[in-house]
């Protein structure tokens, strides 16, 4: 089985490096197929490992020693257990689909090979992040996915906005990563190990303050990667990247790494319920906050991005309240339907010549039947209608909040569920229903390649069945590692009222969205209102950051530049000028006249003689001189 572990881990790397060989050359279908094939191999290996794990095994290998110095010992160790194998399945499934889809999506792009090289490199980093058996390996993967995210957001680097968004994402993550690194340092400082096994064995011995500090710092790292408030602005801007990238990185895998970290470190977070409550509260806040921004946005991809943000908030609520298996379950279900939604949006963009404003679409269901069905079902799953995946995972989070007696969180999440349904179907309605407004703008939509739709279909199936088919098996499997908890409302009446009530509420929100946006009427009175403007401008937070951080920083940099000019540059230039000046003054010595050269020679001889005499004088009278200085 060890071999499967290595295949699962390194096949994407092989694909990436092979594609990189052809990175600068013209599009070759081979790289796309080869990278996808490698991903499929990784997927199959993960599946075999999953079967092994279901039989009750875990796999732990130490490939080689990485750092061994003094008391610090960190190997390149990889572990496949109940939690990591779940993540591996999510990552490999979605990335295989996205790879195949990208062959079609990037068909006309001249950097086709480069794209696959980056995309496979991302999957490799993600696998390192997930499978590493120590925090430092996780951190390497963490940075690796960050770099790949930067490369892929800025994939179309000739676009100013894309490079800006890439840098924004990278810098925001860097801020959070610093905190995460501090968290890792605190753990090493107090436990002397970075292996999960060692940490979990020793974590009970630590005092509360240290645990709280470590928990908070690690969570700040998770906040950056998972784009939680106040580090959330980069995710919406990251939509500048190609759509398959948004589906894979900014919906299904990388942004969920923060949730994964909290789930993976569950023995630590179990000991600090205060921090857990903070995580849950922040999660609920972000769920609502992001959902409200999604209500009014005019950019198809940004709406889905805010929805991702909102769903990440849900996951953090579950993780914060100690329902780690629920968080991981929602992570999995969300990965499937959100990736599907993004890929559908990619099809629409392709059909509409990269147009993103859904108000310019309308009535696309005739031209794009397959995409229409997929996106609608994905939205249904996102809204959490029975029996789709979202119902089983998202409603479970609501129940967790209810059972744990956090009624405020429950209310917030319930309202957010309504908002989720509303904005999802606002989007579907604007794109696919109503009049064919795109004709006014001269678009000629066409359905995507057939194999792209076929590639998407596994996600569709998973979005439908992942909930009711996998929940039981998954629960049985992960409780070996994560705290068990059924989170059932014991009172039958309350349970049914809650479930059916939520369903009705969500359906009502869907119908309302349909009614309101079928004709894509723009209500000017609402749009000029304060709340609409507030939401449309993302609560003015990007503007606030610009005023609060960017502009003062630019001013500071300008000042520093002046100091740099006056001190550093001036001193370096000064030294150079001294040499230049002496050379300039003394070059007249070299006038070619033998007589004057002889004179300089004599002068040099005299200088040498004098210095030799002085030197000998000092050496022979050293004692006397020392005495003189001493006195």
């Amino acid at each position, binding site marked *: 089985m060890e071999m499967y572990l290595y295949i699962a881990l390194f096949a994407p790397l092989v694909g990436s490096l092979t594609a990189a060989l052809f990175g600068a050359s013209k599009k070759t279908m081979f790289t796309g197929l080869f990278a996808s094939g490698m991903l499929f191999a990784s997927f199959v290996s993960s599946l075999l490992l999953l079967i092994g794990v279901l039989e009750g095994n875990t796999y732990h290998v130490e490939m080689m020693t990485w750092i061994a110095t003094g008391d610090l010992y960190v190997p390149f160790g990889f572990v496949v257990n109940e939690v990591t194998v779940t993540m591996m399945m999510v990552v490999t499934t979605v990335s295989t689909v996205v790879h195949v889809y990208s062959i079609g999506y990037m068909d006309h792009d001249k950097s086709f090979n480069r794209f696959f090289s980056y995309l496979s490199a991302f999957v490799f980093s993600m696998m390192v992040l997930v499978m590493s058996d120590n925090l430092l390996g996780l951190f390497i993967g963490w940075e690796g996915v960050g770099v790949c995210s930067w490369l892929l957001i800025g994939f179309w680097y000739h676009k100013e906005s894309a490079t800006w968004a890439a840098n924004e994402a990278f810098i925001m993550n860097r801020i959070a990563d610093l905190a995460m690194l501090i968290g890792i340092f605190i753990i090493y400082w107090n436990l002397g190990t970075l292996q999960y096994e060692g940490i979990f064995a020793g974590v009970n011995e630590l005092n509360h303050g240290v645990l709280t500090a470590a928990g908070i710092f690690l969570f700040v790292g998770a906040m950056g990667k998972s784009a939680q408030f106040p580090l959330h602005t980069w995710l919406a801007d990251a939509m500048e990247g190609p759509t398959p990238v948004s589906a894979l990185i900014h919906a299904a895998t990388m942004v969920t790494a923060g949730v994964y970290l909290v789930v993976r470190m569950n023995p630590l977070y179990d000991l600090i319920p205060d921090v857990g409550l903070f995580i849950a509260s922040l999660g609920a806040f972000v769920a609502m906050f992001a959902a409200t921004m999604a209500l009014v946005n005019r950019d198809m991809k940004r709406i889905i991005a805010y929805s991702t943000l909102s769903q990440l908030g849900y996951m953090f609520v579950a993780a914060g309240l100690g329902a780690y298996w629920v968080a991981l379950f929602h992570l999995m279900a969300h990965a499937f339907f959100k990736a599907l939604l993004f890929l559908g949006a990619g099809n629409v963009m392709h059909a509409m010549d990269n147009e993103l404003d859904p108000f310019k679409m309308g009535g696309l269901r005739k031209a794009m039947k397959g995409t229409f069905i997929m996106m609608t079902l994905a939205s249904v799953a996102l809204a959490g209608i029975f029996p789709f995946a979202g119902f089983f995972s998202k409603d479970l989070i609501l129940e967790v909040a209810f059972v744990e007696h956090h009624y405020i969180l429950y209310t917030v999440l319930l309202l957010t569920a309504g908002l989720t349904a509303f904005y999802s179907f606002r989007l579907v309605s604007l794109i696919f229903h109503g009049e064919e407004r795109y004709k006014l703008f001269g678009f000629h939509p066409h359905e995507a390649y057939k194999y792209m739709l076929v590639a998407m279909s596994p996600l569709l199936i998973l979005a439908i069945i992942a909930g009711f088919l996998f929940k039981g098996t998954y629960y049985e499997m992960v409780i070996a590692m994560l705290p068990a908890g059924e989170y059932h409302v014991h009172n039958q009446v309350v349970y049914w009222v809650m479930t059916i009530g939520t369903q009705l509420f969500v359906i009502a929100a869907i119908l309302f969205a349909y009614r309101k946006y079928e004709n894509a009427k723009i209500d000017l009175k609402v749009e000029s209102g304060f709340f609409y403007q507030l939401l449309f401008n993302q609560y003015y937070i990007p503007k606030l950051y610009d005023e609060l951080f960017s502009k003062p920083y630019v001013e500071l940099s300008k000042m520093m530049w002046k100091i740099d000019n006056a001190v550093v540059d001036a001193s370096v230039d000064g030294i150079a000028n001294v040499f230049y000046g002496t050379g300039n003054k003394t070059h007249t010595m*070299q006038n*070619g*006249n*033998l*007589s004057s050269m*002889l004179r300089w020679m*004599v002068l040099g001889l005299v200088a040498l003689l004098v210095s030799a005499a002085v030197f000998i004088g000092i050496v022979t009278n050293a004692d006397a001189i020392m005495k003189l200085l001493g006195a």
Partner: protein
Amino acid sequence: MEITLTHYLVLSTVLFAIGLVGVMRRKNLLMLFFATEILLNSVNIALVAISHYHGDFTGQLFAFFIIAIAASEVAVGLGLLVLWFKRENKIDLDIMTSMKG
């Protein structure tokens, strides 16, 4: 008055100074050769005198070598000088500036 080592060395130094001034001041190439000969021979005097003083023949041997080298140097130098004179009709040092950097 007995002639001691000091006298020889003083003579050598005086000759060396005369030679040095000649090297610095003379503009005639022929005179420059004379000056260098004076320099070399002043050193020879010092070498022989010190050698005699120490009863060691090494210094006198050195003086022979210097005389031989000086002779060959003058031979080559005079040959070049004659060539130069044929070309330029002058042996003034100030016109020899073709090595100017």
